[in-house]
């Protein structure tokens, strides 16, 4: 188990994203084979199932299974959507996939569209990475000009077109039904489920939504076989995965590794702890996943099952590393502010609850905490969880519960002494402007 590049293989930063470079890397070979052999769609879905590819957007749902939910014969349009609205704090892998290897996503989407009979697709790209959106438009134009997109792809009977849609600053649009609302030109407010998008999706038509990295994994699976992909990971956790490492390490950045690689190895790849300082805690799967204390994290391997056993989630693969100079109350305060800001306001428990969570953590951090505030925080989270339309309510609650559970002493100290356990100047020094060797 170690570093292995499938999605990031043979890339040279900004210099190798064009169609000709992708073709030279063996790109579009999987699609060409499918078209030449008229592979039955069911065989493609079976291959994806065999790979045990699990969705890379956060929930880890098996991709092949999701694809099999789409109605086979449906009188009318079916749609495909790619979720590149990457806004989960700590996550920055889809941006690199899109800017350095956009055709891997395009090929993955064409294959998916063929397998599910979709006639049109949209890639929803986070507004803040507008330069990547522009580049993706160029990549689409290249694919169209080469007959890979549009009517009668590569001379076959199969037609599919793909377009880019940009967000403009709303985290909630990463939630798949909010994303569909947004493509329809509305506020990004999540829909009730059921009905699920496979029966009622974009414009009310059957739709499948997958993450950027999920689609980018598909060409390899079809070219080299689902089993080859699976074997790079471990049972039930197929393949390689990109991890975005941020925080107190020497080399923040994206690392593609085999699922099941020990966390300690990943930390080493990222250059180890900044200034040789001591690890305090890790948020292993994006800001919504529960924080894990250092000693438990050092025993984990990076895969869905191990991280879940440690009481957290692999989520989007965003690993936020915090060292001993971090004030856990302040860290949580910033995250709670984020969820409060980004709640779409549709459900009362989320709209009101995220405000409560932020205000209570804020007052603890600012020396105004009350003795029963930790109980209050826990009771607010129980009033949110499971009572909302979408998972943002849970996403806001899990950090609070886990920070209080694992670093309760630090919160209690704050409430009693009205100040941080970690002195302010130590915090400022530990999190001062740091740019790694990569820039």
């Amino acid at each position, binding site marked *: 188990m170690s570093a292995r590049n499938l999605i990031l293989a043979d890339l040279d930063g900004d210099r190798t994203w064009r169609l000709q470079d992708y073709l030279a890397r063996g790109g579009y070979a999987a699609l060409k084979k499918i078209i030449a052999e008229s592979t039955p769609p069911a065989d493609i879905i079976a291959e994806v199932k065999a790979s045990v590819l699990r969705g890379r957007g956060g929930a880890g749902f098996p991709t092949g299974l999701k694809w099999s939910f789409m109605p086979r014969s449906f009188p009318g349009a079916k749609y495909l959507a790619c979720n590149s609205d990457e806004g989960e704090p700590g*996550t920055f892998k889809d941006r690199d996939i899109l800017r350095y290897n956009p055709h891997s996503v395009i090929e993955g989407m064409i294959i998916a569209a063929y397998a599910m009979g979709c006639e049109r697709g949209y890639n929803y790209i986070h507004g803040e*990475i507008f330069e990547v959106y522009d580049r993706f438009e160029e990549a689409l134009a290249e694919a169209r000009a080469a007959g890979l997109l549009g009517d009668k792809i590569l001379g076959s009977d199969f037609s599919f077109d793909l377009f880019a849609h940009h967000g403009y600053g709303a985290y909630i649009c990463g939630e798949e039904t909010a994303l569909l609302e947004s493509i329809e030109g509305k506020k990004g407010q999540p829909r009730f489920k059921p009905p699920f998008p496979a029966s009622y999706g974009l414009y009310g038509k059957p739709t499948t939504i997958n993450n950027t990295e999920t689609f980018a994994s598909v060409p390899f699976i079809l070219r080299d076989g689902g089993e080859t992909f699976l074997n790079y990971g471990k049972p039930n956790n197929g393949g390689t995965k990109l991890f975005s490492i941020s925080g107190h390490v020497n080399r923040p950045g994206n690392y593609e590794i085999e699922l099941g690689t020990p966390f300690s190895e990943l930390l080493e790849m990222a250059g180890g702890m900044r200034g040789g300082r001591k690890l305090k805690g890790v948020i292993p799967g994006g800001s919504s996943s529960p924080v894990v204390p250092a000693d438990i994290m050092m025993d984990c391997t990076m895969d869905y099952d191990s991280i879940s056993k440690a009481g957290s989630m692999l989520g989007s693969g965003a690993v936020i590393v915090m060292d001993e100079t971090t004030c856990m109350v302040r860290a949580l305060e910033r995250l709670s502010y984020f969820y409060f800001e980004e709640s779409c306001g549709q459900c009362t428990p989320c709209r009101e609850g995220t405000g409560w969570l932020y205000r209570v953590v804020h007052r603890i951090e600012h020396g105004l905490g009350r003795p029963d505030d930790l109980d209050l925080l826990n009771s607010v989270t129980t009033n949110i969880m499971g009572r909302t339309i979408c998972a943002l309510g849970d996403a806001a609650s899990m950090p609070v519960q886990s920070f209080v559970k694992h670093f309760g002493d630090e919160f209690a100290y704050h409430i009693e002494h009205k100040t941080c356990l970690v002195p302010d100047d130590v915090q400022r020094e530990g999190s001062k402007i740091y740019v790694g060797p990569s820039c």
Partner: protein
Amino acid sequence: MLSQESLKLIDVEVAKYPSDQKQSAVMAALRIAQQEKGWLARETIDAVASYLDMPAIAAFEVASFYNMYDLEPVGEHKITVCTNLPCALSGGVHAADYLKQKLGIEFNETTPDGKFTLKEGECMGACGDAPVLLHNNHKMCSWMTTEKIDQLLADLAK
């Protein structure tokens, strides 16, 4: 109300969607309108809505829901700096403090000469590049040390 050039750009967006789903282009159309006008006044939003045959209120709802649309005038250069936790661990807050001090303004303020507006941003999906900031929504500036911030402000002040 909108320039011919903007309308042409909007037409390209409209063509991405089924012919009975023009409203899907509203996010791009508002973005294009904002690029032309600097910010979205009520009349500008109305013009976008009527061009897309949608109710003005629906376009206004979209403009007010998404953070990158400016419903109030902003300075010539809007700088949005990310202070979310992953960035904050590598100096996002320090960079924001430095910008405030250099520009002499707080978040959501504009310098008296109308040149600079400073905003606090949420995760831009670029945390590995911390500190990160956006210039006028679309240009991402990575690894912003104080020297690079000095340079950026000097270039923009020209």
